[in-house]
């Protein structure tokens, strides 16, 4: 079987699996967030944290919940790392330095999972399992909660109430993430991923010398790493490591886990706003971008230009032979179009255009299908902008799902739109002039790899600000400058948008809905989905074109 055919078949199988899971999972999540009942375990949790899960919250209260919970998470994770030296089961690893501990804490709480450390050389069992893995669940549940709050903003009228953050957080974790993670972990263990608390083993190598490997609760962390679009690997090699991702099947299964919730949330959205077709339009928009990017990636990686690539039959550098070009392309697009950032291949070694596709995928704002929750709310904000432009062209004050997009709404959507470009371009520009930052670059102009070096810096901030977490290696990011600025980019890139999303939700929820007439823009039609795709591509393209031209385009066209 040719690699291209293998890729297409895997993509087909993946799409079929996602399609099968779409309705049941989407409907289930809609029921979870809509149900008035609490499970017994949830009641116990509410009692422990002292939350009244039945109290409706207006958007400022909801936001306070998000921020307080996340701040506590950052603090706890920071302390765990700083105190690691004194903790049991730390495998003898020392405490983490302050800037790296801050970076890692910010990274996991923001669902980014940018790692400026190597898991197997820095983090013991306690930090990995009680710190990082816990955040993998709750940071994902936080994203879903915010998305559900925005959906409620569209669905509800003449009220400021957006639901209860604590209930949404706990339900997302207990009823959605944990059950799927348990099943998924069993599948991964069956595939051969490790799950133990063993220490470090020295293994002799065929070529002489010894290699250290350590065990750990890998499968359980791996499953939520993908399912919660987190991406922080137990090991430095991430999903390219055989203990995390042993086979071609486990690879495909992990991609499925990455995509299943973000896609299914569009169904949840449709259900909650009372019109599943609206969800299909958003799904179509996401699907078109996702399939388009995947096809493009497979093509750039297979259309081999240089002599080395031709000898290998494809751009195989940095890719696992057990996955090949097709599966690696599908994985890398899935991980950069969501806020996952897990990798099963070395992103920096993709062709220049391939790297450009990964960059652009994140620059879109990770909304096709995007991170769990964050993909949906990102897409709905873009839909708001698209409705505003297109709505005017049908001769009415723009409205989406019966809610008018007026001054306040467009102000909030525009602020949302400004955040990540400011963080990405601002920090990248600063890094291009500060000698400290320039010193981190391993690929430089002097080595004839100026544009690739620039792409690496651009990638680092794009990944951080968009909460992706994957990296173009070749950049030593474990320096005070990068640890701090990427940490800031992650925090601001996660929570500022949430502020605007929740404010938008509040503003929408207060409105009285406008009934649909023949004069209303039909947002459930293919025309609108096409328009939304165009708006996303053009706005992102215009924002980042100069930067992309000097990075991947300059490299690829040389």
């Amino acid at each position, binding site marked *: 079987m040719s690699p291209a055919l293998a890729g297409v078949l895997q993509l087909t199988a993946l799409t079929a699996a996602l399609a099968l899971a779409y309705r049941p999972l989407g409907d289930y999540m809609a029921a979870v967030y809509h149900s008035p009942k609490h499970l017994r375990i949830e009641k116990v949790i509410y009692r422990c944290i002292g939350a009244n899960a039945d109290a409706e919250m207006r958007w400022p209260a909801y936001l306070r919940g998000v921020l307080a919970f996340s701040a506590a998470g950052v603090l706890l994770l920071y302390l765990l790392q700083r105190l690691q030296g004194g903790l049991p089961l730390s495998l003898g690893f020392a405490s983490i330095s302050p800037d790296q501990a801050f970076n890692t804490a910010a990274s996991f709480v923001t669902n980014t999972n940018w790692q400026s450390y190597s898991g197997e050389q820095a983090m013991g069992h306690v930090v990995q399992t009680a710190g990082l893995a816990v955040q993998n669940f709750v940071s994902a549940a936080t994203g879903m909660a915010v998305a559900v709050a925005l959906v409620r903003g569209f669905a509800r009228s003449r009220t400021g109430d957006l639901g209860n953050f604590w209930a949404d957080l706990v339900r997302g974790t207990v009823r959605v993430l944990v059950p799927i993670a348990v099943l998924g972990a069993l599948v991964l263990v069956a595939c051969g991923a490790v799950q133990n608390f063993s220490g470090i083993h020295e293994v002799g190598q065929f070529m002489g010398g010894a290699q250290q490997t350590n065990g750990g609760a890998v499968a359980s962390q791996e499953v939520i790493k993908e399912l919660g679009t987190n991406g922080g690997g137990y090991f430095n090699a991430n999903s390219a490591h055989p203990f995390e991702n042993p086979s071609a099947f486990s690879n495909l299964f992990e991609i499925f886990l990455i995509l299943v919730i973000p896609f299914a949330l569009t169904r949840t959205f449709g259900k909650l706003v009372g019109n599943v077709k609206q969800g299909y339009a958003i799904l179509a928009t996401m699907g078109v971008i996702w399939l388009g990017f995947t096809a493009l990636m497979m093509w750039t990686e297979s259309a081999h230009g240089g002599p080395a690539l031709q000898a290998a039959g494809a751009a195989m550098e940095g890719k696992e032979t057990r996955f090949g070009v097709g599966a690696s392309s599908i994985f890398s697009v899935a991980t950069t179009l969501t806020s996952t950032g897990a990798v099963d291949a070395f992103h920096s070694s993709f062709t220049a255009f391939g790297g450009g596709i990964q960059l652009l995928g994140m620059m879109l704002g990770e909304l096709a299908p995007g991170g769990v929750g964050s993909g949906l709310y990102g897409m709905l904000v873009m839909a708001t*902008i698209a409705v505003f432009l297109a709505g005017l062209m049908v001769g009415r004050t723009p409205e989406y799902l019966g809610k008018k997009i007026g001054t306040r709404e467009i102000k909030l959507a525009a602020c949302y739109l400004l955040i990540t470009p400011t963080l990405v371009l601002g920090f990248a520009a600063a890094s291009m*002039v500060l000698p400290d930052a320039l010193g981190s670059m391993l690929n430089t102009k002097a080595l004839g790899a100026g544009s690739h070096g620039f792409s690496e810096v651009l990638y680092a901030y794009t990944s951080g600000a968009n909460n992706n977490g994957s990296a173009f290696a070749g950049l030593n990011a474990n320096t005070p400058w990068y640890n701090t600025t990427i940490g800031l980019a992650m925090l601001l890139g996660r929570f500022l948008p949430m502020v605007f999303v929740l404010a938008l939700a509040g503003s929408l929820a207060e409105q009285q809905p406008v009934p649909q007439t*023949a*004069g209303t823009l039909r947002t459930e039609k293919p025309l609108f989905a096409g328009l939304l795709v165009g708006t996303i591509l053009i706005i992102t393209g*215009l924002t980042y074109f100069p930067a992309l031209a000097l990075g991947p385009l300059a490299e690829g066209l040389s």
Partner: protein
Amino acid sequence: MTAPVKPEGPGTMASSSTATPPRAPHQDVPGGHQPGDGRVGGGLFDPQQLLTSLPDAIRKLDPRVMVKSPVMFVVEVGSVLTTIFACTSPTDWFGWAIAAWLWLTVLFANLAEAVAEGRGKAQADTLRKAKTDTVARRIDGAAEEQVPGTALRIGDLVVCEAGDIIPGDGDVVEGVASVDESAITGESAPVIRESGGDRSAVTGGTKVLSDRIVIKITTKPGETFIDRMINLVEGAARQKTPNEIALNILLASLTIVFLLAVVTLQPFAIYAGAEQPMIVLLALLVCLIPTTIGALLSAIGIAGMDRLVQRNVLAMSGRAVEAAGDVSTLLLDKTGTITLGNRQAAEFVPVDGTTEAEIADAAQLSSLADETPEGRSIVVLAKEKYGLRERHQGELTGAEWTPFTAQTRMSGVDVDGRTVRKGASGAVIAWVQERGGDVARDADALSNAISEAGGTPLLVAVEDDKGPRVLGVIHLKDVVKEGMRERFVELRRMGIKTVMITGDNPLTAKAIADEAGVDDFLAEATPEDKMALIKREQAGGKLVAMTGDGTNDAPALAQADVGVAMNTGTSAAKEAGNMVDLDSNPTKLIEIVEIGKQLLITRGALTTFSIANDVAKYFAIIPAMFAVAYPGLDTLNVMRLSSPDSAILSAIIFNALVIVALVPLALKGVQYRPVSADRMLRRNLAVYGLGGLIAPFIGIKLIDLLISLIPGIG
């Protein structure tokens, strides 16, 4: 295209047969435009206006004025900076060329606004002429004193006689007069103003032609209708509308995004070893920010108001114009809007044993003395359908005429031994029975059938040598204006529900509603019913538009999202509504909705066009900037522009010229046809989205070709 409907002249508002004061025949030509230029076309754009508006455009370069449009303010700052940089290397033609075109870009934007405002100014000047300083004859108790019009206060009583200019807005409290209101409405036929009722409002600046009236002043000097009108057409009172503000926010944030993209580009470029001159970066910035829509945005708003003014509608706020585009329920008064102002004879139905010719003859004879519109229509029908020549009262010698009165409810004639009567069925039956005659058995059934069909039956009876008897029934019906049905179909397609408001009973109302094709009707409507209907619609999230003229309409006019008061109406109605129709033509509501929609479409279309344009500009400028450092990037030069300098300059020139090219579109508005939202979006996306993507590739290439011909540059 609906055919213009021309009502029958004076008295069209009269729905009863009692005499009503004649009022100005309104120009009921929808839009007053030529066939083929779209339904709501605008005034034509005259290139001459560009020249005459130039001084205003230059005056608007004042940064304090410019800052109101964030996008163009950035361009102006860019122009200043570019000029400074050009001065630092005065021998470089490129810097000067960019600076010059950036200034032109700002100037073109100001020009667009100045041209839009210029049209209103001309109108304001005419109005000012009407607002001459008048002397008012104020009544103080029994005495009368002469005071300047500006000294009048609310509640003052003034007297006006033939030849006087009315000194201020007010209501007639005593007397009747004919008034020339041409200064405001442009309509030369005089109108009647009388105390009490719905025709009591007079406007300052209009002229009394006959009789004497006493007016109670209702507005302060300086705030009169004519003052507000001057402010409106001049744009002095213009405030940004909610949608305009929202769009400005979006444009400002896009400007920030592009500012960011350009500012951060320099460090990237320095790292790549291709540091860019400031002038080039400024040129890139101006090309990227949405200058096209930024330049034309206020012109579009002013032109939208102006299109209303051209149709003799004054919108008290731009917000109302925008709301008009969103209207989903139209309340239309039956009389004068949906139907012609009066019932007309449609048919003569004979009873058993009578011929149609007999009844036609009798009906005509008996109606010759009936000067009401209904009476006239009977004569007309007899002539048109039965070929009966109209006889004049004078030619029948010895005839004794009985004119129609509200008391007798009959009219007729006694001539040649025949006595003919026609009138309301009760009155005619009584007349026949009084004379010992028989009422045909089927007369009742025929009358009822007509009533059930929504018509009004009039009986015709005669007393001659065969004795008194009923000849038959005249079927009077409301005549739906020509083309209304098609209009309602169009409105439905646009998603607008029409509700007919009428004082008729439900049966009649339903028949007319069915015939006209409105979606719903409100029969036996009282002002309270109207109000309740509006509130009900609004509670469902709908925006409601209505017209009204009476004082009892005022609360509903104020409650409606778009309330159009008739200029003939009371001052309370005019105060309550947010638009005034100087022609007092209720059908115009439909056009107002279309103008509102057109305004929003024009904004959206030009925004889309502006943003889509940027793609081509990137392809022109980015290779020009970096092809030296990274030769591979020349692949992106898909237009094969002749040189980097020419590429950048061509993009800037295109950017400036496209503003001028679109000024006519901004002023006239995007072509609007009443179709569904889906079709409209498809069309506009194809024209302005796709067109906006492709047009600059062609335009920039052409400009580059021209530039490359200039010796020493290309």
